[in-house]
């Protein structure tokens, strides 16, 4: 087996790695937007819950939460599939971090524009979705890239709950071929490629929605 055949073998785990990364990123985005949005809507009563959520989930190790969800919940009668377990651990943790990224970016949305939208008669929710989120997302790109990258880098934990992603394939392959150095080098190359593609995707979207006078570039 030459190096490229090894890579081809490992690539069988690629789909799982990408799926785990996308599912956790999607969960993180949804949770982050919800948390940051609720805080922004100014419902004083939910703020302590949002604070509690970000406080706890930013402090818990991914693996501990993953095991808690996947191995712990069944003991109270809740059976969670591997992918859902990843979403409920890595996804929620990413959501807590993204909520903070979004909170910072929301603070950069011009108060005068929000006031103008209020003066126009828009509801708080309309302002959030039509003015604040569209501007905030453009401002939050660097923070979002950081978070997506760490999701990718945590995705190997998926093998602990039985998802045959790249790292899992590598372990199996190493056990049978004993060519650990080459295999893990190849693993590194694959992660690097996924990372570059992910980055290119985000940058494509960033460019596509770029607005002169707003954002990072």
């Amino acid at each position, binding site marked *: 087996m030459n190096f490229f055949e090894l890579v081809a073998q490992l690539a069988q785990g690629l789909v799982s790695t990408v799926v785990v990364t996308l599912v956790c990123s999607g969960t993180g985005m949804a949770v982050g937007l919800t948390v940051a949005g609720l805080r922004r809507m100014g419902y004083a009563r939910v703020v302590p819950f949002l604070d509690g959520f970000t406080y706890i989930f930013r402090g818990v190790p991914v693996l501990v939460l993953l095991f808690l969800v996947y191995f712990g919940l069944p003991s109270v009668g809740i059976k969670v599939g591997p992918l859902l377990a990843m979403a409920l651990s890595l996804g929620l943790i990413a959501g807590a971090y993204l909520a903070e990224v979004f909170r910072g970016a929301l603070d950069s949305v*011009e108060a*005068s*524009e929000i*006031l*103008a*939208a*209020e*003066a*126009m*008669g*828009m*509801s708080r929710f*309309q302002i959030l979705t*039509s*003015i604040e989120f*569209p*501007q905030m997302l*453009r401002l939050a790109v660097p923070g979002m890239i950081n978070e997506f990258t760490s999701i990718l880098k945590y995705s190997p934990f998926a093998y602990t709950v039985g998802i045959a992603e790249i790292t899992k394939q590598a372990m199996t392959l190493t056990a049978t071929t004993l060519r650990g150095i080459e295999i893990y080098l190849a693993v590194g190359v694959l992660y690097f490629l996924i990372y570059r593609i992910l980055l290119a995707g985000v940058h494509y979207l960033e460019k596509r929605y770029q*607005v*002169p*006078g*707003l954002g990072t570039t």
Partner: protein
Amino acid sequence: MALIRIRNLVKQFGNHTVLDGVNLDLQKGEMKVVMGPSGCGKSTLLRCINRLVEPTSGTILVRDQDIMGAEVDVRALRQSIGFVFQQFALYRHLTVLGNVMLGLRKLRGMSRAEAEAQALFQLNHLEMADHRDKYPSQISGGQKQRVAIARALAMDPAVVVFDEPTSALDPVMVREVADLFNRLNREGVTLLCVTHDLALASQIANRVLFLDQGVIRADDTLENLAKHHPNDQVRAFFGEKEGRS
């Protein structure tokens, strides 16, 4: 029947009384100018009218409806009052066209095609249709103001209020702004404008209201205010700046 009738309007921020019994009437089709030194409460007065600021006491009737009533639909009230801010406050992430369309889409529930047609009509009216695809950062202050006016007019408001329309513009623009206001008013738009720009006031109104120390201290022609008002400070306010215009 006055379009807007303000009686005894009081607004306090903490124990700082900014408005201390303001009375003001605005008739349909009128163009009214309120002047006053910086910090006298001009912006606060305008913001009370659409309840961006909650008045402390007094009454404000808009088309005979008491806007402080518990049953008042604040968002509907705001939709009936076009507000053009000092810095224009265009939405940075939307094009010129997008800025004018937003309210039509979200508040009037128009389809994209309908909203676009209506927005282009207003932009044309304000000679901004050629700039429809530009973003706010790509147009000048005067152009931003025209977009902000188009955005307000697109909602077909009962009145358009202006907060210091010339303060963010080059002084040479005053003539243009005055011409535009006069034209809009001739076309039937009701305008309420607060400013401390005497040059602007002199070109759009014969009479002005003078807001100072929380009350309308005078309601007279600029000439009378500058020459014959009994109070020194009032004469100084209207006289001192006349040289600049």
